[in-house]
């Protein structure tokens, strides 16, 4: 309350796109390489302003491929490094991501999804799910994928992303939709961490890199197979330890609504409205998309009668839900594409229809069991 001297505050209004840069800088990110693309451009704007202010590296690359390969170089030099893009740019980056994965190098990639395929549009979509969660480039690899749904999480997840990238030596995606990227919310900035020491495996001219070699080439079939087996073991380890889901009123839920990114917030509002109407609804939000929170879905399937997957895509995550619960319950899809966001009303209406409680125009006999 007392002013006069300069007082800093850690609370500010930030777009998701801005918050992820603040988070990255506080998490000790040293280099940013990127190429502008809507709706991710504010990431580059914010990075261009603050990386140099902190004496760190910001470079606008000549292309998405160049950006991801600069990331490859800086990561090989043992620095925390990031890039950001949207669908089309991520398609171009896939080659470099495969090399990062194959060379076991850490990096953080932010994908603010927009409409596709092709040029599509700049509206929000979630249609990069498959190309990001399932590997995307050539070869048998996976990236950790985490899906924030608020500006605060965009900031906080940057810390988490860098830590996991360093722990498991692989690229980590922060994957979200244009709404979360563009939306401005109140963010509390965490404290900055001290500078990370250069890892032993890195190519750093000051610390004897002579014996270090980073490559993804294994000419002998057996060597490459061995390498691949090691990678798969690593992914299994991640699957075992890193699954995270957010459960909301799932304990007694008969219908579970699931979505990631902005959809997870709509789902929560829908659950509240449905509960008011006496429908036992819950929401289950995958926070990690790889590893997909199989355990949480399995648990939910014990009580829930059915699932509703809500996506801003043609239905990409729904396959993972079906696999997780081994198709033991019906999984329905409610989706919008092209930059449209499903409304809370449409989610509520769909749930009412599915639970047979709908008072929708067609008063046919309810398909589900009556409560």
């Amino acid at each position, binding site marked *: *309350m007392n002013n006069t001297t*300069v*007082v*800093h*505050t*850690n609370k*500010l*209004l930030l777009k998701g796109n801005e918050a992820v840069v*603040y988070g990255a*800088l*506080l998490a000790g990110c*040293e*280099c940013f390489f990127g190429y502008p693309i809507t709706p991710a451009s504010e990431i580059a704007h914010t990075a261009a302003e*603050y990386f140099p*202010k*902190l*004496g760190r590296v910001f*470079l606008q*690359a000549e292309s998405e491929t*160049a*950006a991801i*390969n*600069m990331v*490859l*170089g*800086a990561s*090989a*030099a*043992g620095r925390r*490094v990031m890039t950001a893009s949207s669908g089309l740019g991520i398609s171009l980056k896939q080659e*470099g991501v495969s*090399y990062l994965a194959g*060379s076991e190098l850490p990096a953080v990639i932010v994908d603010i999804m927009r409409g596709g395929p092709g040029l599509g549009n*700049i509206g929000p979509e979630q249609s990069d799910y498959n190309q990001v969660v399932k590997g995307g480039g050539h070869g048998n690899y996976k990236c950790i994928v985490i899906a924030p749904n608020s500006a605060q999480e965009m900031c906080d997840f940057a810390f988490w992303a860098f830590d996991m990238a360093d722990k498991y030596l692989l690229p980590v995606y922060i994957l979200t939709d244009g*709404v979360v990227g*563009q*939306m*401005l*919310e*109140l963010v509390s900035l965490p404290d*900055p961490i001290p*500078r990370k020491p250069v890892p032993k495996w890195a*190519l750093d*001219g*000051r610390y*004897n*890199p*002579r014996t270090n*070699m*980073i*490559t993804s*080439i294994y*000419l*002998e079939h057996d*060597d490459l197979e061995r390498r691949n087996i090691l990678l798969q073991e690593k992914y299994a380890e991640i699957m075992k330890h890193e699954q995270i889901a957010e459960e909301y009123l799932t304990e007694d839920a008969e219908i579970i609504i699931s979505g990631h990114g*902005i959809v997870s917030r709509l789902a*929560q*509002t829908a659950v509240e409205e449905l509960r008011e109407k006496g429908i036992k609804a819950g929401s289950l939000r995958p926070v990690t998309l790889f590893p997909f929170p199989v355990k949480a879905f399995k648990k939910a399937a014990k009580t829930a009668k059915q699932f509703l997957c809500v996506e801003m895509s043609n239905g990409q995550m729904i396959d993972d839900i079906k696999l997780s619960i081994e198709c033991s319950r019906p999984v329905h899809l409610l989706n919008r594409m092209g930059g449209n966001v499903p*409304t*809370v009303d449409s989610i509520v209406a769909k749930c009412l229809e599915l639970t047979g409680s709908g008072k929708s125009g067609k008063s046919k006999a309810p398909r589900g069991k009556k409560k």
Partner: protein
Amino acid sequence: MTENTNMKVKYGRSKGFFETFERRPGAIKKNMHYCPGCGHGIVHKLIAESIADFDIKDRTIMIAPVGCSVFSYYYYDYFGISAPHGRAPAVATGLVRANPDNIVVSYQGDGDLGAIGFNNFIQAANRGENIAVFFVNNGIYGMTGGQMAPTTLPGQKTATSPTGRSVTNEGYPLKVSEMVAALDAPIYVERVSLSSTKNIARTRKAIRKAFQNTIDKKGFSMVEILAGCPVNMKFNSREMNEFIENQMQHYFPLGCFKDIADTRDPIKRPEGIFDKQKVKDILYPIKVAKGVSADFKNESKIFQKERKIKIAGFGGQGVLSLGMMIATMGKLRNFNVTWLPSYGPEMRGGTANCTIITSRQKVCSPIVDKLCNLLIVLNQPSMEMFLPELKQNGVLLYDSSTIAPPKCSEDKIIYAVKASDIAKKIGSLKCANSVILGALSVVMKDYFLEGKDKKDFDRAFEEAIMDCFADKQNVIQMNIEAFYAGKEAVEATLTNPHPGV
């Protein structure tokens, strides 16, 4: 074959190489994998020798490209990283920007550099990255079996130009050195050849010069080395050398195209700031507005529920910053807020709109597609588009300088203010949004604010303006003036409030 070059090797293998090539799979650990007469072995040797002589083994990071030299890591007693095809200059950029003390070498062939990776290469050159590029130009794709390269000569037969390179179909060979030398940033560009002992000696000198520049951090150096690929070209080694001298050197003249290292200062890059307090001072915003204590809550009933606000107008009318000011008020009074713009091309000329939600609880959906509590409209098309979204008993505020009075149901609370006209009078159309804010403060006072909030609110508006324009002092003054002008203008019409029609 490298042992049989014309170079004088006094003490056997160069000190830059391993004694035995343990990284090479298979039984052969003493020899290179390159074919007889191949240029790579010679270039490798010259590089290894330079690195050993400069005593920079521990600081050098080699980047292996895709092509025959993808396996160059078998040989050097130091190495680095394998890059994707053509991406070595981008990878080099990452390595040298991350740590400017790294001595980074990008070793590339003609396909890697001149075809698939030309943009990465030319852009790194144009940025003047402090790297050394050794470009081995043999005019053919060796590893994949003798296909045409961007530097294959006109008429030259390859697997993919079986009747000879046709300039009308495949174009002319790429003159890389000439192109690079035309750029401002690169400091050293020389084309050399491996066709004779004399030329190899020149190559050796050029490679050393490139290393010296990189060690001195002077910038981008490139040595283009004309080399042979006798196996794919079906030449013996004498024919190969003749081909390089008579054909290749004719099209690709040897010589130094640029050498301006002396005129350049060493590249200096800033040191990263990681001190906790310094990082906070730079990154954490300065607190501008006084704000309120953490437990403060406005008492008026209106604030007990989630409030949905939509603002629409032309791009450039300050629609988005008006939304920001309202969102900032929310922040300053401990609300949870979301602000979501319509983004993209419509921001740059067409219509723009944004939605703000304030709530004491967590805001779930940030999207307002119906039932908004407050609608602020700054142009006619937006009125037509968004008026149907206004909730029963909702508030409509509009700029009556440009918009005709709307027709809507009587439950709506409608306030009009000549925002653009007033703003123009004050000095800038840009502060029309603050005029609107002034009008909003009157609406709030008339209908919604209770008790202490009436007093608190004007201050909250002012603080929000200060907070939003913290870095532009003169703008703050003008906007505060506009705020009060808007307030007065609406208050003056209060005795005769705008008819709801």
